[in-house]
């Protein structure tokens, strides 16, 4: 199982029956593949739809039916479409139960940076700032470290996406929760030692006596 699959299957356990959820582009999109059978979750795409499903078979695509990454999707029973102002009223207005987003950095206060690298990559924030500011729960789904070193750092060196503290960080090594007292290590991935997590984390972690092994959703 690769890192992305571990992360997606752990994040899927954060889903609850009846939730409205927005998944970011890339790794977070994989979470939709592991929704536990016993619950029903509605997915929103910020370009204007709730209740979409997997890409349709070839030859059944509708050019008016795409997700926020521009890929073709399908509608599930109960689906609804709306304009961008309505879509962001849902996001900003406290109607979105959870968002799952990728991250470039998270710091010891739980602030996320995920929209630009000055001088290198300026794609624009798209809907990320509204999602992080407005969703009831913000889950960061990202690999624990990048080529340049740890992605969980004491203080952001990249511009923040919001001043809001994210709810949970899920990586292929650990589940970490930002709290008033800093970052708390909640779970470790199967076969991963606490010392390895500490070594690959650039911020101080508070570590309870017992750090349980993370469960993951069924494939």
């Amino acid at each position, binding site marked *: 199982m690769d890192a992305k699959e571990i992360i997606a299957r752990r994040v899927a356990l954060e889903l609850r029956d009846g939730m409205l959820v927005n998944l970011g582009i890339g790794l977070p999109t994989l979470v939709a593949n592991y929704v536990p059978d016993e619950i029903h979750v509605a997915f929103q795409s910020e370009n*204007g739809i709730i209740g979409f499903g997997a890409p349709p078979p070839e030859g059944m695509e*509708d050019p*008016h039916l795409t997700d926020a990454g*521009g890929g073709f999707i399908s509608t599930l029973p109960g689906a609804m479409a709306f*304009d961008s102002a309505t879509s962001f009223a849902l996001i*900003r207005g406290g109607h979105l139960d959870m968002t799952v987003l990728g991250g470039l950095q998270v710091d010891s206060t739980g602030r996320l940076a995920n929209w630009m690298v000055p001088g290198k990559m300026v*794609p624009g924030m798209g809907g990320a*700032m509204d999602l992080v500011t407005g969703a009831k729960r913000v889950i960061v789904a990202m690999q624990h470290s990048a080529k340049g070193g740890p992605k969980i750092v004491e203080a952001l060196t990249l511009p923040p996406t919001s*001043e809001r503290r994210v709810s949970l960080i899920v990586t292929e090594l650990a589940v970490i929760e930002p709290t008033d007292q800093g970052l708390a290590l909640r779970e470790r991935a199967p076969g991963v030692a606490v010392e390895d997590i500490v070594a690959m984390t650039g911020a101080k972690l508070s570590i309870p006596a017992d750090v349980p092994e993370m469960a993951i959703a069924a494939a």
Partner: protein
Amino acid sequence: MLTAISAAEAADLIPDGASVMFGGFLAVGSPERLFDALVARGAKGLTIIGNDTARPGVGVGKLIDAGCVARVIASHIGTNPTTQQKMIAGEIEVDLVPQGTLAERIRAGGAGLGGVLTPTGVGTTVAEGKRVIDVNGVNYLLEIPLRADFALLRAHEADHFGNLTYRLTAANFNPVMAFAADCVIVEPDHIVPVGVIPPDAVRTPGVLVDRLVGRAC
């Protein structure tokens, strides 16, 4: 009653240097024939306002490729390397606006509001130069209204009163932009007789629409 004009006639209405809102999300719900006509006319110096700049050769990306654009106001340019290259080269000025803020600034511009207060962007680079206003203990950014000389919209159906419908995710920014420009030009997939669109199904009231672009043939 609106009589349909051609895309080329519509493009002739839009002078060089105009500000132009355009519907679409990664070119879904974008007025492709109006973009083609602007390229064919050789439009220059446009300020374009929309969610993104699609991809090279696709949607509004065609205006970027052809050098029609001086300034972009958008939430995302990451799918179009040409926009990024021209921004770095200083050929295009780019203002990045959070997507929800962009929608609300346009809505404010069309709804007669003096601005919107949003928590989005507080404590980020988006807040630079903007007023932060405390309302009941929560900080909000004052974001000012956005309007344009023209709005170029894509609809599914239009009737000759200009009443519009949209399909699925092709609505996106089109409905708010219909309120926020001095001249609203619509490229519908179909023009239908008045009465075919039931009143409850009208998403954009025809009173907002100034010009209809006719069928491709």
